């Protein structure tokens, strides 16, 4: 599985971390909906740790699409919310 951290690059992950990422993903959505900025960063930081810690960076010469994408490490909740909102307007 390929995971991209926006502004940073892609990582290839295998095995157990996937489940954990899905759990974190669900929590992340919850924090975004609740507008809980500290909680949002806390969950996101765990996801970054997991991806960077368990994954290996994808070589630049390998051109592959990602399965999951994480926001920029310094992105605010509002920024991610706006990005998600562009899904509706952008694809219309």
């Amino acid at each position: 599985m390929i995971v991209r951290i926006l502004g940073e690059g892609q990582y290839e992950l295998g095995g157990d971390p996937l489940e954990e990422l899905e759990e974190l993903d669900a929590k992340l959505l919850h924090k975004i909906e609740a507008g809980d900025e500290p909680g949002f960063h806390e969950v996101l930081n765990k996801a970054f740790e997991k991806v960077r810690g368990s994954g290996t960076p994808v070589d630049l010469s390998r051109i592959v699409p990602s399965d999951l994408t994480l926001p920029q490490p310094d992105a605010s909740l509002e920024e991610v919310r706006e990005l998600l909102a562009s899904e509706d307007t952008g694809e219309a």
Partner: protein
Amino acid sequence: MGVMKRLTGIVQAKANKALDRVEDPRETLDLSYEKQIEQLAQVKRGVADVATARKRLELQAQQLQSTAAKLQDQARQALAQQREDLAREALSRRAGISTQLEGLKTQHDQLVQQEQKLIVTTQTLQARVESFRTQKETLKASYTAAQAQTKIGEAVSGISESMSDTGMAMQRAQDKIASMQARAGAVEELLASGALPDMTGSSDPLQAELDKTSQQSQIDLELAQMKGALAPPPPSGALGAGTSSEPDTVADDASPGEVVDAPHAASNPSAPDAAPAEAATRPADGQGGPPGGAPAEELFSLGEQAAQQ
């Protein structure tokens, strides 16, 4: 659907939109290569823009430094004139500039960070573009094979994703720079209009008084020196210009009343009149500051303003 999955779709779709219009996947590869080349040029321009913005901030900081040095000199002058109140005022203004300098430093740090990020982005993109160029030719050569079509699809998605990621990084950097430039522009306007140092002079009677009394005491000093050196005194117009900021009070306060020709000088602020006034204020103001142009300019603006009032 989870946030991370949705983000993937959004990021890929961003660049895909531009590529979707092309029917032949081989053309899509060429087009996406062109787009990457364009993007590389954009990012390089971005690096240059950040560097320009950073240098601009550095220049502003220098200007603020000069102003601060000048205020410190004014405080010294005021103390020398036994005017602690005015000295206090000058120092408090200097503290205000120090706060502004701190703000500039924060912005400067952020710009340096952005600059470094964009440099890394440029390097990454450069490497990717080069690698993509050879890969797309391989993919195009084997296009007839069914498997290759899938590969092309993947490559296009992959490259779309990278491109929008880079695009977003650029956009974020530009947004940050734009907001910093707006703030930096405000400071620059203040400096250019002379409002920052002169806000001092025009809006505050205490500062005006300090300017006046310091000019006056220097003029008294020069007068004394001239009287000592020369038998006949120099033309009164030159002396009048120096005290022309507040003609009425000057006339009251000045001890050598006969040489003060303030009303005349104020109505005729010609160049020969103004020059000695600048010369009179220069020695004291120049003491602490660097010998650059900025302190001199500030001196000029103070002198001009005094003459206009």
